């Protein structure tokens, strides 16, 4: 058995704790990534979110390991033994340490601000090859295309940048397709927007993410991401159904 040193400032303590912190960080990092599966993975805008999320997880794993290993180590090593009536070691603080653990987090803040700015730009930008207006109301959605087509489901061609323009006719709602990543509120009296470039064909659920009254939980619409040809066909069929004279696009 390892003999632990008596003095609390002995180097040996810190070597052991340092090694444990590394091990716990790695284990915890993988564990957290496993139990926190980020659903956003089917759009260009989801990528920066996933990437930043994972970066955060590693920082969280490290900080969690740092604090908890130090704590549990101290609880174990510095517990009072039977028949020991002495007091703890007398030290009141350490200014160098305090400055260190103020400045290092500050540097991290600067780095994360910078990364945060870049990822924000990436996740809120994109083209407007396709434009759709999504209107939310208690408790359903309608989608208007610029050519006059109106639909209760939203259909988008895969890999085409779309700009979704959002508004509400009554209370605040929020547009969220979890697989796409970001969400955006719909505010009555305002127009907001969301960029999305879907990258995977499939059927998704658009949910309202802002409590909006009685059946908020059920304010759902179907979103279909389809190959371009299928999109064109769908659009033509809609135009025919709704007897619209094609204006543009």
């Amino acid at each position, binding site marked *: 058995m390892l003999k632990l040193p008596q003095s*609390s*400032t002995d180097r040996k303590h810190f070597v052991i704790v340092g090694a444990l912190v590394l091990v716990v960080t790695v284990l915890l990092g993988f564990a957290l990534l496993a*139990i926190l*599966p980020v*659903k956003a993975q089917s759009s260009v805008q989801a990528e920066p*979110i996933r990437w*930043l*999320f994972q970066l*955060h997880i590693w*920082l*969280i794993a490290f900080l*969690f390991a740092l*604090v908890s290993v*130090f*704590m549990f180590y*101290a*609880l174990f090593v*510095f*517990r*009072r033994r039977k028949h020991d009536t*002495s*007091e*703890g*070691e*007398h*030290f*009141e*603080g350490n200014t160098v*340490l*305090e400055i260190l*653990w103020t400045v290092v*987090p500050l540097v991290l803040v600067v780095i*994360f*601000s910078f990364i*945060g*700015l870049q*990822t*924000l730009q*990436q*996740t809120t930008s994109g083209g407007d090859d396709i434009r759709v207006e999504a209107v939310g109301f208690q408790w359903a959605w309608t989608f208007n295309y610029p050519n006059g087509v109106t639909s209760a489901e939203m259909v988008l061609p895969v890999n085409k940048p779309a700009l979704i323009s959002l508004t509400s006719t*009554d*209370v605040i709602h*929020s547009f969220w397709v979890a697989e796409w*990543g970001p*969400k*955006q*509120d719909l*505010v*009555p*009296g305002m127009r*907001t927007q969301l960029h999305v470039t879907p990258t995977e064909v499939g059927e998704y*659920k658009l*949910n309202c993410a*802002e*409590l909006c*009254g*009685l*059946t*908020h*939980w059920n304010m759902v619409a179907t979103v279909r991401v389809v190959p371009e040809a299928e999109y064109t066909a769908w659009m033509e069929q809609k135009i025919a159904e709704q007897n619209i004279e094609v204006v543009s696009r």
Partner: protein
Amino acid sequence: MRLTSLGLVRGLIGYAVGLLLGMAVVVVSRLLMGMSVWEAEAAWVGGVFFAVIGFLGGVGALSDWLKWTRGAETPLLHGPPADKPAWTRYFGVDYNHKVIGIQYGVTGLFLLLIGGSLALVFRAELADSGISFLQPGTYNTFLSMHAWVALAAILLGVGGMANYLVPLMIGAADMAFPRLNAFAYWINVPAILTLLLSMLFGWDSGWTAYPPLSLRGPVGYQLVFLSIFSIGLSSILGSLNIIVTMLMMRPKGMSLFRMPIFCWAILATSLIQLTATQLIGQAFLMLSFERTLGMPFFNPLYNAAGENIGGQPLLFQHLFWFYSHPAVYVFVLPGLGIISELLPVFSRKPLFGYRWVALSSLAIALVGFLVWGHHMFTSGYGEYLRVVFMISTLLVAVPTGVKFFSWLGTLWGGRLTFPTPMLFTLGAISVFLIGGLSGPILATTATDLFLHDTYFVVGHFHATIFGGFVFPFFAAIYYWYPKITGRMYDETMGKLHFWLMTPGFWLMSLAQMTAGTMGMRRRIADYDPALGVENVHLLVTIAGFVIAFSILIMIYNLFTSAEIGATAGNNPWRSRSPEWQIPSPAPEHSYARPIAVVGEPYDYGLAGSKYIASMGAGDD
């Protein structure tokens, strides 16, 4: 003893009389103005407004002030009432800060139980998908009530700790303004009644009450607005009282940097309460005016051209969060103060970096004023604000980190023992760590656009609030229980409580966060089984019931130990703090003689050091 000799009973009568009177006033004025006589919402608004005043009059919280207007004498009475059993003083207006502290604390615990029970009901509903017994309207009401009842519980719990402890810790005879102190407590009671009454009508917006939704729903909203307005008034008056007490009534030798560290936490908390609470009062008042009198503050109105000539929904969110973000620090700073207060005692070591810990509370309070917009990243405000509030929010992590590291420094090299209060302190650190570390991931805007309004946020804030308030509050209850009752709680039950609640809570937080990343939105009455979160929800529900059960053990412990617990003695924890140098239970007049501070508060392990001395009759 007549029942009406209890202040509380007279208050309730006053409430009922006020309610009827207020309704009558509304009905008569409508009659005079030639409007339809009965309009439920207007009648209830008028009724409840008068009911709150009626309660305060009935209970006697206004009596002395009214006498002042007549120039009558109002001596401060001390001790339990002469003609009634001693316990009755807790059910009426009493000016002793220890009584008021207990009133706050017990009311807070009571509300915590109500708020928790509401949660258990909807957690049971969420245990599997599909709507089983809670209809969506009721679900929304329960969810919204859970939040405000729990928040009121926290505010009262904080008030309890501050009122009981601060004067004791600084050796003051009482608070600076005892009558204001009693008023600030008692206004909570009709406010809580009103809040509970709102369940009759229901309301469905969650605690945030965003308009336009909150402008449309049932009458319940109006009761909530008035209730929160009153509780806010209590916060403002209470914090003013505390600040004055702390700044003016410290004993000789107690410079600010020689106060027990808990006082610093309360100072920071009170500064927030004194200056931010007005904003939520105003926001809710504006909602109330808009509903009752049609003033267009928040709801857009359109002219013929379709332009908005009415209100702005986002304005409300700014006002609301300008209070409600700082408010979360009101919830946790006192608890973090409790952690810093207890660690040195159970480590037998000085608090590591006292000044840094003290100032970090102030720093958190100040930075906390600049970050409200992180609740609005998806709201549609300008792109630029998304950046500003990201950076300011990340900054909060710095002073928070200082606290964690200083706690570790305090433990390091100590002689640690683990009675129940210490266990809850350590549990608090572990839980607050989960909560705090899940903060920055919500602060970087990109990740928040995904996580906002999901269960990840639910996990985050329950962990911060449990780690920052509930665990430390329980630690404080166990720790000061001997000082309050003179008896020891039961250690075995205390440990059982801890070992059920802490793992239960870890599990609950993590499971909530998992559900969030898997796409589970918050505040929904039912969810799509296709999300694959049913098992996770079941875990959350089970963990929730385990936590609730463990809290019942504590309640049982507190009740029985008051009768049969071992006699505790003056200072069972061998603390240096002033309140432990006087008898237990603390006597009516806490300090027989004024105290003087002659050393540092936390010099554990420094031979021959003293913190306070009792001043003899002659010297001052």
